[in-house]
């Protein structure tokens, strides 16, 4: 602070040093010209006198000493105020010129705060602002309201070459060329004169002018004259130059002050010093002292003391009526006030500040009462300065300067400038005392009133003050810098503006105060554009364009400016890291196909997991695949397995999300991925990656094909675009980022910053590689054909059990043929591969019965394939099928859904390329279809054994239509396999005549349609029951012609629809897949075939055939055993010859249960009461009860055969019935009778009399072995208990006496 204070004090001293006026003759000047200097310039450097130790005595008695002194030397012509215009433009010039060394002053980047701070603290006199303020003050010098700049002395210079120098002296000091101050009487024309005779040594020796000097002394007095010889000595340029430049201070108005070589005054240097010293000490100072004393006496005489005060007061009162102009009354030099002012000023210049202060105070009250505001302000200003110099009561000093400021302002006009000057003084004082905040405040206040340029300068200084404050007030600093910058811009000081804005930027950047930073960036952008640093401009504007918070108008402005700059500078060639539009670089979704290809987008969307099970058994083991593509030509690449695999000539899709943050629409064109591509050949040296990166710019040259997108984004719109890249050669492809062109002007670019999936992040559907760096790297392999696969005629919704023929189309677009096609489906029991023959005939009819050779061997092939694959069914197309380039193959598939619900079928087709050396060994096509299966017919079967026939069962078929709307035609019932055949239940007569005759078919059908199944049309939600006779096929392995009988058409008699063959073709295979291998022959598989027309009137080919399987339905009788006794109906015997007749009968027992059993047969003895009861019962039951249809149809024939015997006779016979004996073991046991097997038990009976006998006197009892009640099967057997007995069926045997 002390240092600063001293510096300021020094500044003031040499600012307020006495002025010496110079009047010189042209000749004198001209002799100075030899040095390219005016006389004044010659003197100026020497005007600072130090190490003088002169005593000075002013008003007070004891003298004090001045150590150094200084004069301000001006030409008479210079002693006036320059016109405001000139002054201003001079100042502007200073600012403009100093723009560079202003930048130079802060060593380093203006954006760096520390640099600025350092600059501000090391503020020196030579700083451009100091220069500015100095010359600003000097423009205000020589005002009439202060005597400080009034010349105290006048040098009259005449050359020795002038003729009649004396007269020259005289007319030098005449009015016309004297400054206004003297002429207009602002100052006392009686001013100290000093007569100088300038002698040019080169013109001759000094003695020539001695007599002139003598005359002068005579004329003007001894002390007032002197001679100054110049131009002696030899030039020593180098010394001179720096000497002069150092000592010379800037003149107010730049004269022709050229420090070119100064020829020959070296030696006279000393003389000039002496001369000035002489003048100062002998003339100036004494003159001032004595004037001070004189004035002081005068003042104290008139103004000191009470009397004078009153008088003065009264006198002022008297003066009140004078109308006061804005500037107050004019004071001539003779006026008391001026006298005091001069006194005070002289005292100030002689540094007797106490004296000065007291007089200023005295004066200020006068001016105040006179309302001479300008003078008053001036005096206040000086009081302030005095106080500062005395370093007393700072408070008061500041107050005085403040009032000075206010009153200057009050005067307005040009006077306002003085206000600014005062402000500068005040701020300097504050600075000197380290009160930077106050200084800044003062400067700011001054700036408000000032012209733009000066305001700018002041504001900048204010900013620096804030910076220097402790703690530094950075925000204020920034703010004021920006304000200054604004002013600079207004008056086109772009470099200054640039500088301050740069400095301000660091304060405001990245502070969330968006509007501020936008403002700064905007202006910086403009300025740097104006100053030609375009990259900087673009940089700043890029920060602006994505400002979502701004108003639409601003946004469009910023955007326009930016585009304008770009257009005029770099254009499209330079890629900019734009963030407009905003790109989601961290998650992009990659779509590509390596060996896995996808038939549809749906398939591509399906999660990877589902394909695993489908593919197993279809693909070679993984290790093998690895091996193969390590073998691929590109194995030279290091860690090739870190990359994704893709195939040359196929698209890689990258989903990128663009969003528009602005509220104005933007349009984006030629969007494409930017990629690096290394060809396999050049893979080793990495340099190529750069090269090929350049290449990507022009697509033609590059080995990549990059299709370009274009779209326009509405305000705040967000869209996802799939960008494609298609590598055309083998190599390594890396997708780096995305390029675009913003509204046709600016080329933008963003790199993808792909991160790996986060922890706990749910996997996305896309097939992203786990590691980030891999996802966008691709190892491009040689071209590999890619099949286009499509499935035709596959309906979206079907009824359950419906059979569809769908066509699989394989198209090979490439040149290379494709072989080894295999197909596997997730639902092998719903989707079957047909054989080409199926395609030829039109749909439903191909199912019908016909010669089937080709089908057989296809079916064999299947069955072979079937056991080859562990899980599911892999169908490999016949060896022959090679798909040539560009060829298409159609292949039929059979679809049959047995269960209702949503069915999604995933199918994979495997194929290999024919070409020997390809990157990929194989490829697969993945298809997925989802089909809704509606519930349709639901059938259930119940089989019960017929009690009479071992080989016959009754089959009851319940059909329920569960479909909500549609109704079905029942077309045919069949039972599969060759173990069984199916026959309708027919009245006997029909059965009698024409077994298997063709003509009876209609009859049978008619009967069926009449009785069994009244109508084949089954409307929604209705149930229908059909009854059939189920026969065990007699001989195994019959020819197919016989098996037809296992199908029964239900069609109406009129319609002669051919039967549908279920023993081969798709139906058969679906049946196969439904019944995994037909294990126990005991069970029956029944197929109901229904059909249905869509609507009524539609064409025939839209016939839909459905097949419904019921499998493993086994016999469920009332009891698990059937037995039949076989005996001759009638036996002829001669009782006379042989008393009893012996007949052998066999009892056949069949085990219909699903368990092996042990059976015991007992024959019952002579009827006890109970047993006779039973026999009676047996009879009545036979006679009375209406037998079930089966039994009737069995019981009829014997009656008929014994046609001669009427019922009555039977009764008679029965009445005369005698006993008979079992003549064999009482009981025989079959220990294990396996399920479904039958056993014969031979029996013998002895009769003693003719008659007809009922042979039902036996009992069968059985035990089911390994019979556990908690069996999963819900057959009747489980519900029944393990043990059971049954009595024999009634069987009549007639014994007739033979007639001999």
């Amino acid at each position, binding site marked *: 602070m002390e240092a600063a204070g001293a510096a300021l004090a020094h500044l003031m001293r040499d600012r307020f040093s006495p002025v010496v006026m110079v009047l010189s003759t042209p000749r004198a000047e001209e002799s100075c010209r030899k040095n390219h200097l005016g006389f004044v310039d010659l003197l100026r450097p020497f005007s600072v006198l130090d190490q003088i130790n002169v005593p000075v005595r002013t008003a007070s008695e004891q003298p004090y000493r001045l150590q150094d002194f200084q004069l301000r030397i001006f030409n008479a012509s210079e002693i006036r105020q320059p016109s405001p215009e000139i002054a201003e433009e001079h100042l502007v010039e200073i600012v403009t010129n100093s723009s560079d060394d202003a930048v130079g002053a802060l060593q380093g980047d203006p954006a760096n705060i520390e640099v600025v701070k350092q600059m501000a603290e090391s503020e020196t006199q030579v700083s451009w602002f100091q220069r500015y303020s100095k010359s600003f003050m000097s423009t205000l010098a020589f005002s009439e309201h202060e005597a400080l700049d009034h010349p105290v002395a006048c040098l009259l210079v005449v050359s020795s070459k002038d003729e009649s120098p004396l007269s020259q002296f005289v007319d030098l000091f005449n009015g016309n060329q004297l400054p206004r101050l003297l002429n207009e009487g602002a100052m006392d024309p009686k001013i100290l004169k000093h007569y100088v005779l300038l002698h040019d040594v080169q013109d001759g020796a000094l003695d020539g002018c001695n007599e002139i000097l003598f005359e002068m002394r005579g004329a003007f007095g001894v002390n007032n004259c002197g001679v100054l010889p110049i131009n002696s000595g030899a030039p020593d340029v180098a010394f001179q130059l720096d000497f002069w430049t150092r000592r010379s201070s800037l003149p107010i108005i730049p004269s022709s002050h050229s420090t070119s070589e100064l020829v020959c005054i070296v030696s006279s240097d000393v003389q000039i010093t002496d001369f000035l010293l002489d003048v100062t000490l002998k003339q100036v100072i004494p003159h001032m002292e004595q004037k001070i004393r004189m004035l002081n006496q005068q003042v104290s005489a008139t103004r000191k003391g009470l009397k004078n005060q009153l008088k003065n007061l009264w006198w002022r009162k008297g003066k009140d009526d004078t109308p006061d102009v804005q500037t107050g009354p004019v004071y001539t030099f003779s006026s008391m006030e001026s006298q005091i002012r001069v006194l005070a000023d002289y005292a100030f210049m002689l540094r007797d500040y106490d004296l000065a202060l007291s007089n200023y105070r005295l004066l200020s009250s006068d001016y105040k009462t006179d309302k001479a505001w300008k003078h008053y302000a001036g005096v206040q200003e000086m009081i302030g300065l005095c106080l500062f110099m005395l370093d007393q009561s700072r408070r008061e000093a500041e107050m005085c300067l403040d009032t000075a400021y206010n009153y200057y302002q009050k005067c307005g006009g040009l006077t306002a400038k003085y206000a600014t000057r005062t402000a500068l003084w005040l701020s300097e004082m504050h600075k000197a005392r380290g009160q930077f905040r106050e200084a800044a405040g003062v400067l700011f206040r001054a700036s408000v009133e000032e012209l733009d340029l000066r305001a700018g300068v002041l504001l900048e200084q204010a900013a620096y003050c804030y910076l220097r404050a402790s703690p530094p007030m950075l925000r204020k600093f920034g703010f004021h810098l920006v304000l200054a910058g604004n002013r600079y811009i207004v008056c086109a000081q772009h470099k200054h503006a640039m500088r301050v804005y740069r400095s301000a930027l660091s304060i405001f950047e990245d502070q969330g105060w968006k509007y501020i930073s936008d403002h700064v960036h905007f202006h910086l952008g403009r300025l740097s554009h104006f100053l030609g640093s375009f990259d900087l401009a673009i940089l700043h504007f890029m920060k602006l364009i994505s400002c979502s918070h701004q108003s639409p108008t601003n946004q469009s402005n910023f955007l326009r400016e930016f585009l304008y700059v770009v257009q005029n500078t770099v254009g499209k060639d330079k890629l900019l890291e734009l963030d407009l539009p905003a790109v989601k670089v961290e998650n992009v979704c990659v779509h590509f196909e390596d060996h896995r290809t996808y038939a549809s987008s749906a398939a591509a969307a399906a999660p990877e997991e589902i394909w695993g099970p489908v593919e197993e058994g279809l693909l070679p083991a993984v290790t093998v695949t690895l091996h193969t593509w390590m073998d691929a030509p590109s194995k030279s690449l290091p860690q090739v397995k870190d990359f994704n695999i893709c195939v040359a000539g196929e698209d890689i899709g990258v989903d990128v999300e663009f969003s528009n943050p602005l509220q104005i629409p933007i349009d984006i064109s030629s969007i494409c991925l930017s990629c690096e591509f290394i060809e396999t050949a050049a893979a080793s040296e990495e340099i190529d990656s750069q090269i090929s990166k350049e290449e990507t710019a022009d697509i033609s040259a590059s080995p990549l094909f990059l299709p370009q997108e274009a779209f326009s984004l509405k305000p705040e719109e967000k869209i996802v675009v799939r960008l494609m890249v298609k590598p055309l050669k083998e190599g390594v492809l890396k997708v780096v980022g995305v390029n675009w062109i913003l509204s046709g002007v600016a080329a933008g670019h963003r790199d993808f910053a792909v991160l790996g999936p*986060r922890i*706990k*992040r*749910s996997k996305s559907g896309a097939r992203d590689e786990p590691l980030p760096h891999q996802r966008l790297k691709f190892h491009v392999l040689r071209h590999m054909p890619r099949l286009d696969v499509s499935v035709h005629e596959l309906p979206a919704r079907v009824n359950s059990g419906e059979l569809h023929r769908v066509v699989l189309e394989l198209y090979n677009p490439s040149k290379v043929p494709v072989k080894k096609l295999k197909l596997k489906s997730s639902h092998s029991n719903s989707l079957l591969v047909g054989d080409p023959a199926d395609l030829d005939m039109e749909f439903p009819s191909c199912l019908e019965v016909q010669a089937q050779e080709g089908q057989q061997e296809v079916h064999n092939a299947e069955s072979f394939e079937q056991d080859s694959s562990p899980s599911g069914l892999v169908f490999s197309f016949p060896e022959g099928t090679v798909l040539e380039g560009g060829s298409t193959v159609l292949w039929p598939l059979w679809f049959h859904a047995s269960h209702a619900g949503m069915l999604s079928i995933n199918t994979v087709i495997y194929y290999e390329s024919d070409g020997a050396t390809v990157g990929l060994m194989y490829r697969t096509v993945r298809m997925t279809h989802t089909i809704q299966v509606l519930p349709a017919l639901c059938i259930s079967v119940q089989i019960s054994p017929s009690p009479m026939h071992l080989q016959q069962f009754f089959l009851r078929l319940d059909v329920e239509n569960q479909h909500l709307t549609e109704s079905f035609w029942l077309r045919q019932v069949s039972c599969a396999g060759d173990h069984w055949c199916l026959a309708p239940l027919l009245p006997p007569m029909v059965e009698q005549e024409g077994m298997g005759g063709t003509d009876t078919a209609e009859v049978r059908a008619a009967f069926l349609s009449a009785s069994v199944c009244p109508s084949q049309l089954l409307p929604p939600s209705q149930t229908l029951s059909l009854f059939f006779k189920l026969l065990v096929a007699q001989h195994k392995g019959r020819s197919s012609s016989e098996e037809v009988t296992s199908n029964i058409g239900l069609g109406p008699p009129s319609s002669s629809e051919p039967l549908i063959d279920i023993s081969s073709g798709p139906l058969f295979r679906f049946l196969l897949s439904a019944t995994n291998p037909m294990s126990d022959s005991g069970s029956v598989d029944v197929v109901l075939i229904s059909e249905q027309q869509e609507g009524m009137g539609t064409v025939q080919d839209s016939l839909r055939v459905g097949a419904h399987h019921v499998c493993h339905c086994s016999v469920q009788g009332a009891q698990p055993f059937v037995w039949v006794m076989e005996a001759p109906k009638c036996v002829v015997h001669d009782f006379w010859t042989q008393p009893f007749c012996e007949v052998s009968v066999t009892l056949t027992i069949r085990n219909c249960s699903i368990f092996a059993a042990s059976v015991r047969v007992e024959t019952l003895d002579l009827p006890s009461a109970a047993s006779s009861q039973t026999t009676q019962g047996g009879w009545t039951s036979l006679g009375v009860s209406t037998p079930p249809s089966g039994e009737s149809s069995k019981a009829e024939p014997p009656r008929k055969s014994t046609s001669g015997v009427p019922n009555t006779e039977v009764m008679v016979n029965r009445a005369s019935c005698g006993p008979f004996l079992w003549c064999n073991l009482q009981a025989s046991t079959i220990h294990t009778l396996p399920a479904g097997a039958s056993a014969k038990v031979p029996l013998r009976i002895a009769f003693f009399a003719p008659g007809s006998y009922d042979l039902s006197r036996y009992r069968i009892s059985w035990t089911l072995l390994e019979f556990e009640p908690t069996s999963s099967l819900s057959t009747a057997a489980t519900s029944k208990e393990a043990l059971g007995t049954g009595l024999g069926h009634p069987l009549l045997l007639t014994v007739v006496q033979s007639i001999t």
Partner: protein
Amino acid sequence: MAPPTRAGDYPFAPVDRVNAELFTLTYGAIVRQLLTDFEEVEEVNKQLDTMGYNIGVRLIDDFLAKSNITRCSEFKDTAEVIAKVGFKMFLGVSATVSNWSADGSECSLILDDNPLADFVELPDTCQGLFYCNILCGVIRGALEMVSMRTEVKFVKDMLRGDDAFEIRLKLLEQVAEEYPYKDDE
């Protein structure tokens, strides 16, 4: 069973209380942590539900012990108990049971004020979050312990600008034995 309100107050009395702000903020902290861990809001909803479930299976015993409520046979009673006693006891507010479905297997618990959601306001980033989804889990878990398999979800959420909180309660089946809970559903 006793009239709900008194039945609710009775067990409420002995329960020692905790400062509401603390409680709310604690729950809030949990939710926020979940949000930072699983970015997807859906995930968070699931997690909340799971947590709730784990709370519910433990809570039910305590509940039955404190409120000596005889095991309710009817689903309707159960809903009432949850609304009047359960909520009162653990949240200090009581819900109202309303709009029953025809077959009586579905109903809504309506909360006019929910201490969990005090001061909460969903930012744009969390749209689709069911802030109080933990309640669903609790109810589900608790009911499962009393052998009712239910499906519980929010249908109205004040935080989403609805007029009240509405929890939809759907009885899937009334299983005899304990239903083995699998984590992944």
